[in-house]
């Protein structure tokens, strides 16, 4: 496998954080998460829908989310994801780190 480029890590980290945030609102299936992210960003952010699934699998392997089969609103079989307690804690930490980073970046960009 090719060495991880830093901005890969950045993007992954961001996607993970957004997915966790979407799930903080309540358990949801993959499609529902896509919709939540689109609505949340007022359609400004279009994530590659395919990349959502590797992210979910990754978060599950890290123990930040858990999943099980269930029924969708229209009564179809869907995989439901849910935040675990460590996922909740992780989200809080990520969120804090993100605030610091964005503030720092904003300050730099605002330099005269």
């Amino acid at each position, binding site marked *: *496998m090719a*060495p*991880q480029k*830093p901005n890969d*890590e*950045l993007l*992954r*980290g*961001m996607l*993970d*954080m957004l997915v966790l945030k979407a799930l903080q609102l309540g358990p949801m*299936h*993959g*499609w529902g998460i*896509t919709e939540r992210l689109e609505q949340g960003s007022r359609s400004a952010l279009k994530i*590659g*829908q*395919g*990349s959502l*699934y*590797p992210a*979910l*699998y*990754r978060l*599950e*392997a*890290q123990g930040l989310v858990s999943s099980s089969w269930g029924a*969708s609103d229209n009564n*179809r*079989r*869907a*995989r439901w994801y849910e935040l675990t307690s460590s996922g909740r804690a*992780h989200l809080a930490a*990520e969120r804090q*780190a*993100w605030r*610091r*980073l964005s503030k720092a970046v904003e300050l730099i960009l605002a330099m005269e």
Partner: protein
Amino acid sequence: MSSPLRSALRRLFGSGRARDLDSRFDSETAFHIDMATERNIGAGMTPEEARRVAQLDFAGHGGREHWREQARDEVRSRFAEELGRDIRYAVRGLRRAPAFTAAAVATLALSIGATSSIFSVVNAALLQRLPYPNADRIVAVCERNTTQAASEPCGVGGFSVPNYGIWRESATSFTAFAAFAERRVAVIAPRSEPISAKARITTANLFTVLGARPYLGRFFTDAEDRPGGPLLLVVSYPFWQQYLSGDPSVVGRQVLVNGGDYTVIGITAPRFGVYDPVDVWLPIRLGPAPQGGRSLRAMALVKPGVTLEQADREMRTLAARRAQDEPTRNSNMTAFVMPLREKLVGGSERVLWTLLAAVGFLLLIACANVANLLLARAGSRAREMAVRVSLGASPKRLARQLLTESVVLSLVSAIIGLVLAVHGTRVLVALVPGDLSSQMLGNVSVDWRLVAFTAAVALGSGILFGLAPALHAVRGHTHESLKEGGRGGTEHSRTSGRMRSALVVAEMSLALVLLAGAGLMVRSFSALQHVNLGFEPQHALTGRVSLPGRTYRSDTTIAAFFVQAESQIAAVAGVRAVGAISYLPLTGQRSVTGFDLEGRPPYPPGEGPGGDMRAVTPGYFQAMAIPLKEGRGFTVDDGMGKPDVAIVSETFAHTLFPNESAVGHVIVYEWDRMTHAQIVGVVGDVHHDGPAKQAYMEIYRPHAQFTYDGMDMVVRVNGDPAQYVRPVTAAIRRVDPAIPIASAQPLERLAAGAVASTRLSASLFALFGILGLLLAAIGIYGVMSYTVQQRQHEIGVRVALGASTSNVIRMVVRSGATLSLLGIAIGTVLAFAGAGLMQRLLFGIPPHDRVTFATIALVLAAVGVLAAYLPARRAARVDPVTALRS
């Protein structure tokens, strides 16, 4: 495969789950695309278009397979991949900091190398199985006089021949009970020079006791081992290789042994004698009721199911019964058993364990030092870590990366250390005293236990010292680290500072313990070296000459041989004096005999003081340069048929005749009331058992009146004694061409051998002590440099406010000295508590010797101050303007 194991493996590698995972992915993404399609239809697209757009939105042009792969990878190779990434990251990181890496690897590799070499010697001497099956059940059976202090727990010889005959029948604890005598014999193979061979004249069942199998041929049987049985010879593998050119056809042929024709019937296995080297074995041919004195050694194989304690109890009971049945020879005697291993390696055990402990301390210091290095490195990388955390790396992952880095570091060091260990072991074996090293030479090797030990040490230390920085990372003081400029003084750097100071204190105290041990050993060694052995070891050659009883049947012919040999040797140019003694000092041989003094009441049997009796030729005292204190020495007139005479040592004279001269008194042997030997002279004491042992009560008898067929020759010469081996051998050949000279060596080497094990432990201890001191100094230096760097700002302020250079230096040195002193104080307490354990290794100084402890403490304090002074001076040169601005 059991299912818990399978699920554990799955969790690690996820391999079994690939198909499950794929179907799950397909099913849930199908749902996803269906839902997207429905939404698109709701937005007014045709069903076909809606599905196409949904698929494109989902997967781009790469197709669903791409994401399926990705998803699978996320789960499946997570473990292996992260490990690989961590290792690559660690290697890259280490390569980027060459100075750090070199320091850490050198420190660890050296100490792992030292630990492993000591371990492999300890392993060979103490842990490895003896090369005998059932080694745990083989015991030496010994007799001992209960009234005398046991100088040797299970002596050389001294087992009663008749007692052996009786006990062999009556003892029930043993599967086999063997006895043997040891002496040198002259072996003459076809077309070869006479060879002096170490022979064991033994009962046939010795091979049963040791569980030996012949390499070639066979061993002799009980039926052959009887009076009038055939003359048979078993040869050791090394002897066969060296003197019989390893020729298999030797088996079945005859060689001359002490003038008799012996048939070679077998060769022992190559490793058979590594712990207990013997050249040849001959049948002892004892009768059914054997007669004789205490000239045997005994070994037995304890029956399965019988404990060593039970066997020991039985032997003591049997000995007590013998003392009742035949008190003249057996009162005050007891018998006991001793595990063979203890007999073979007993003496060096304590030295080896102590060295292992010392090297363990060294390893601890090294670990503390590397931990310090890693902490410093973690400090300088705190910002890097903080950035990585904010970029989404979890603290756990960072911790694991740091841990991986230290494990990689220690594994690399372990490999280098192992290479060092292989060489170090060889050096060490060469330093080990002769007896032990000849036993171990073929035996010290790098085996799986050494590899396991090194790996364990490496991994253990890697995890141990990797943990400190890793803990920091997990605690995640990210925001502080990001904020932390050059100024320092945050919570993070304070805890790390405390940790580093604690490590330095630990290092200093461990170094003190090591150095105290080294100091005590070195002083013992120098005390040993200054002991006057009682003779002059320089410029003298020694060698053993043993005459075969077949050709030298009478005392007269034996005495005549030595008279002629001495006169031939004396004629060699450069020879100043020549003499001979039954057993040289420092060879571990002794024959204690009970005696009475004429005109004084006899001692009750077995309760006399006992004197060590040796036979000497008239030239002996001069050849050894042993001073005559009173009376006269022996002359050629003190022969057979002349009045019996004796010379005694000063200790003998002072102990038994404190207020009068010993000369003129008469010694009567307990076992030979016919001999009345008059004391004609007193000579200086000789430390026969080595410089650390007390001089004994010695009785010297003239060889012509008390004949031994084997004698140690001493030739005092001008110049290098080694040069005289050839002419002296030739001189003996001129008297009898069939007589070899054995173990010819300078007397000096014998003397050096007597202090060799102390020399070995002293020099190794000194080496470890100095290494420990060096490492501790580096530790202090490192911490002080780091502190100075952290406090640059503060120091700048102080200088700006008018602090002088010496103020700054004093301030920094004081904080360094505080750490040193704390370490020294703790170390002194530890060393003081532990010194008692070394008591038995020491000579001439008490284990709590104040001078040693004070000197060590002072040296350590001086080094500590120096190590703090260098960074202090650098700090004092700080330009306040630069410091404040940075």
